[in-house]
């Protein structure tokens, strides 16, 4: 499990942004792709643990899961497979470009002055 490492990197980023914008962090909105290698539940646990004793303690973590969006060169259109079946079911071409699903980002912060 590397969610604790991820939570620590996240907290660094949040603190930097909170300082820039000013205010107390009430909630953190993150986007986690299904192919990011991160488990939402483990991240939530790690985040709470890592926030203890910091100004972020008690902040809400809102996790948005991002599904796969893949462009198939064979069909020249996008499809939304699950991570176990990325091969295009229609044309079977191996040329598949992953457009969404690898996200690992802090999207927004909810701040009070």
């Amino acid at each position, binding site marked *: 499990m590397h969610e604790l490492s991820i939570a620590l990197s996240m907290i660094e980023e949040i603190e930097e942004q909170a300082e820039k914008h000013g205010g107390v962090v009430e909630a953190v909105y993150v986007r986690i792709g299904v192919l990011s290698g991160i488990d939402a539940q483990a991240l939530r646990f790690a985040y709470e643990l890592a926030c203890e004793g910091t100004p972020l303690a008690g902040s809400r973590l809102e996790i948005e899961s991002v599904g796969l969006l893949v462009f198939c060169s064979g069909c020249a259109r996008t499809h939304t497979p699950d991570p176990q079946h*990325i091969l295009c079911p229609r044309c079977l*071409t191996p040329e598949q470009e992953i457009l969404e699903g690898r996200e690992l980002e802090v999207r927004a912060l909810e701040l009070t002055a």
Partner: protein
Amino acid sequence: MSASPQPRMVEVRARILKENDLLARQLRERYERAGVTVISFVSSPGSGKTAFLESLMARLSADWRIAALVGDLATENDAARLRRSCSQVKQIVTGTVCHLDAKMVGAALDEWKLDELDLLLIENVGNLVCPSSYDLGEAMRVVLLSVTEGEDKPLKYPTIFNTADVALLTKMDLAEAVEFDRAAALTNIQSVRPGMRVLEVSTKTGQGMDAVVALVAEQIRAVRREPQPA
């Protein structure tokens, strides 16, 4: 008491691993300047990474200058094994950390002169989950799957297979004994990483090792801008 202030939303849109990604980009530039090919290896514990690297380095060391970095939670055992086939080996002991990151790799490389190397091999910590998130600046990531692990590993760990460039099926000498379903394994790999090149190897019998050596040599020549043999 004043009324509680109204919360406001601030768009951030920041990649959580931006620091690692930045360091990885700097590493990649450093490798390119030095003309060194960097290949990393990921797999579950016990899939045969170290044995494979021993065999690979023994086959490449006559023609190329090689170094290896080995990541493990504890012990220097793997580095000691690899030193038998290559003099420049460094162990990164990660302690409780389950993966290598760009910072650890950068720090480990500080004492080495990269421009005196042709090939740097990085053996990641045995783990099919965590290493997938961390770019090490490598030119090629190789995932190993041993025939004793089960054909459905790619479906269980799609992320690591999806971030890899080449898959190796290892311990092929045991395939028959464990009734390895080769077709199912290949189908599963293509299902999570369409188009991925797959090589089948055995360090015990030497099966497939020539193909790996050819692939690595091709990569080294491309980085050094040398002509490929006809």
